[in-house]
């Protein structure tokens, strides 16, 4: 039953038409949210007591770091879906997300490095969170490269999915690294359980920027998955009709 449902709903064709329906709304909503929170955050919040103005890079750094992990989790979920139910769309999603994930991780690394110069006095430190984020970045690149290096797409999909699942151990490591090892890096300032340790004046624009960034990245993922479907199903008649 479930299997049938998934297969019906998750046909690349249905997916493509749904994407086209919702894409512009998501895009508009997130770009507006992001712009508003960024302007608010940059222009209308006070200077940080300790860090001065440099903390404002937070509106780029935190959403990017957060998303780099979320996207990996999304990949892992898709992988499981693919391996259990053999949903082709899930396999397309895995490989569609990978480059976007690599991009956000890269942004996280770069923005963190830039932020590190004024606050820590160095742009790089082999500390647990930074290192594990670097590993995440390398993993993204490795997975993309792995997929490209096999000419048999089905084989590549299967291998990729397994490796994504195995590599998922890195995610809790990144999350918990600040707690497990004493590091230079900030520990979590927003958690679901505790009261946030950050001033609400900064908090709201931060949440807004995370939401907006999130939406924008989703848009990218949608575009990239569309591209994957085109490539992989280009010989199907419906794709030719669509184009």
């Amino acid at each position, binding site marked *: 039953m479930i299997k049938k449902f998934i297969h019906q709903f998750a046909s690349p064709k249905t997916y493509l038409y749904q994407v086209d329906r919702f894409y512009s709304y998501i895009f508009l909503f997130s770009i507006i949210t992001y712009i508003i929170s960024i302007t608010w955050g940059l222009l209308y919040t006070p200077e940080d007591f300790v860090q001065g103005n440099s903390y404002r890079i937070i509106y780029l750094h935190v959403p990017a770091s957060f998303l780099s992990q979320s996207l990996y989790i999304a990949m892992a979920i898709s992988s499981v879906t693919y391996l259990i139910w053999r949903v082709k769309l899930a396999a397309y999603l895995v490989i569609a997300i990978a480059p976007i994930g690599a991009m956000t991780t890269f942004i996280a690394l770069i923005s963190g490095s830039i932020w590190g110069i004024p606050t820590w006095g160095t742009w790089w430190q082999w500390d647990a969170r930074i290192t594990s984020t670097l590993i995440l970045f390398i993993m993204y690149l490795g997975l993309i490269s792995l997929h490209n290096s096999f000419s*048999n*797409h*089905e084989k590549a999909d299967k291998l990729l999915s397994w490796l994504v699942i195995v590599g998922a151990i890195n995610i809790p490591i990144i999350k918990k690294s600040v707690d497990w090892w004493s590091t230079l890096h900030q520990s979590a300032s927003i958690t679901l359980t505790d009261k946030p340790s950050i001033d609400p004046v900064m908090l709201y624009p931060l949440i807004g920027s995370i939401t907006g960034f999130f939406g924008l990245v989703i848009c990218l993922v949608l575009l990239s998955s569309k591209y994957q479907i085109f490539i992989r199903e280009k010989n199907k008649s419906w794709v030719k009709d669509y184009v």
Partner: protein
Amino acid sequence: MNNNSLIVAENIGYKINENKLFHRMSFNINRGEALHIKGSNGSGKSTLIRIILGITQPVKGVIENKSTKEICYLGHKNALKSYLTLEDNINLMQLNNNMMLNDYLEKLELKKYKDVTVSNLSFGQQKKLALLRVFLNNSDLIILDEPFVGLDDNAHLELTTFLNNELEKNKSVIFTSHIPCNINSKIIEIPQ
């Protein structure tokens, strides 16, 4: 499916990236039999051979190899080291039957090139050198992917006589060839 059969393939199918090469292919090869796999370029002959060798897995169906010895195989690629001399390459092949070796070197007119680096040998000479592995095999199944390519008439004849002899010795041969040849064999044709 008798006791005499060496390779039994049932309903095997293969596809790669939505490109269906063949499906529902069944055949069997007995000892002493030759099989000529025919088909146009890109129809999947080499792929079928790699499936028989066990290098590639079929997408559907099963294939069974009842031989206990190593298969003797020569594909499109010669498996020669181009930077080594003819002699060193022979050493690498670990051929044991030394008397026969000299015989074949003579027959294939390779003797005087012992010290020539393989990359300097002519196209056909390289193929002949690679075929030494076949001529001196000690296995009961020989698989050749277009072995006649580049051979002159003399070497072509040498190879067909050899293969026909092997068949009489109850060995089996699987081969592909776009060049007509004089081997008494079953034929399967892979449709386009």
